[in-house]
């Protein structure tokens, strides 16, 4: 007498068995017992005790994350440092700006770059890596840092090519974001009493 294979029993369990297997199982005691054993085995597998990790891996994960974050911040710091230097050089070179509309733009650009550099210095007082931030504050700060990074990338790519008016606009936008970032850090520092 032909019996169900393990494939047939699996298909019966899944409700996908052939007509033959479905008929056979109703009359064959051996196959019924085999199917029951299969059900029991699966139930036993589900009931196996949970295996626990032998060591705590969180410290390693945490250390990796810290290293990644420091790398990102160093990259960002290099960008902002370069921009601050560029602002200082521009301030020296623009001691005698040209007159008229062009002169006004140069003055505005110079002012925005100087403001940006000053805000960078202010930010250093709030110890970027060390502070404990709430979830909301961390999200605000992370978003501002991301936006400033994107803006710095744009400035680095286009500083030589865009017109002065657009450059002034970009630098003023950067000053606005830097101001928000300093405020977010300063508010948090006041809140935790640091």
């Amino acid at each position, binding site marked *: 007498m032909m019996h169900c294979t393990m*494939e047939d029993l699996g298909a019966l369990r899944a409700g996908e068995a052939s007509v033959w297997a479905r008929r056979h199982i109703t009359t064959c005691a051996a196959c019924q017992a085999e199917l029951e054993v299969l059900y029991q085995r699966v139930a036993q*597998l589900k009931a*196996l005790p*949970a295996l626990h*990790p032998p060591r705590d891996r969180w410290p390693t*994960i*945490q250390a990796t994350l810290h290293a990644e974050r420091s790398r990102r911040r160093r990259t960002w710091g290099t960008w902002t440092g370069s921009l601050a230097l560029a602002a200082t050089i521009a301030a020296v070179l623009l001691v005698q700006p040209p007159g008229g509309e062009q002169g006004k733009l140069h003055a505005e650009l110079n002012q925005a770059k100087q403001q940006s550099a000053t805000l960078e210095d202010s930010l250093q007082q709030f110890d970027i890596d060390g502070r404990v931030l709430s*979830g909301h504050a961390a*999200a605000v700060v992370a978003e501002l840092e991301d936006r400033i990074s994107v803006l710095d990338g744009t400035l680095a790519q286009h500083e030589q090519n865009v017109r002065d008016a657009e450059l002034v606009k970009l630098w003023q936008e950067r000053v606005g974001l830097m101001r928000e970032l300093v405020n977010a850090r300063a508010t948090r520092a006041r809140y935790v009493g640091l």
Partner: protein
Amino acid sequence: MTVALAVPDVIVARAQAGDEAALEALYRAFETPVYNLVRRILRRPEDAEDVLQETFLEVVRNIKQYRGEGYLWGWIRRIATTKALMRIRREQVRETESLDEEPGKPGMHVAANLDLERAFDRLSETSRAVVWLHDVEGYTHEEIADQMGKTVSFSKSQLARAHARLRRMLDEGAQA
């Protein structure tokens, strides 16, 4: 092992904002289910530990991408499963496939008190993965085939062969 974990939304939101305490809370909530899953699939405990670490590094790096669709455990489980299966693929050359199919090999004798857990441990990593994902985690054959890069037929036949082997080993254990 049935996992019925519910992590408060506020913890997930804080983790998404980069809050380290919340990220650690996620790790603590899921370290055992993840380890258990990958340890059942992978033969070597040290491989399972590595996959546990890789899984949580990916979880932490990509938690912002979790949109709250479906259970968080489902999202984490998928990452863990993918990493465990990738490790099987990568180390397939090293893997001593189907130990139970080589009864003549020294040391392959099935011990008298062989129980289900030990029999399961003797299956190949591919068979273990299919059995565990299908029978315990509730994956469909389509999902297993998709994650393994194989066909549905492959998944079905692996499952049937694995159960036949388990049956044989348990019978031999009971008779010995």
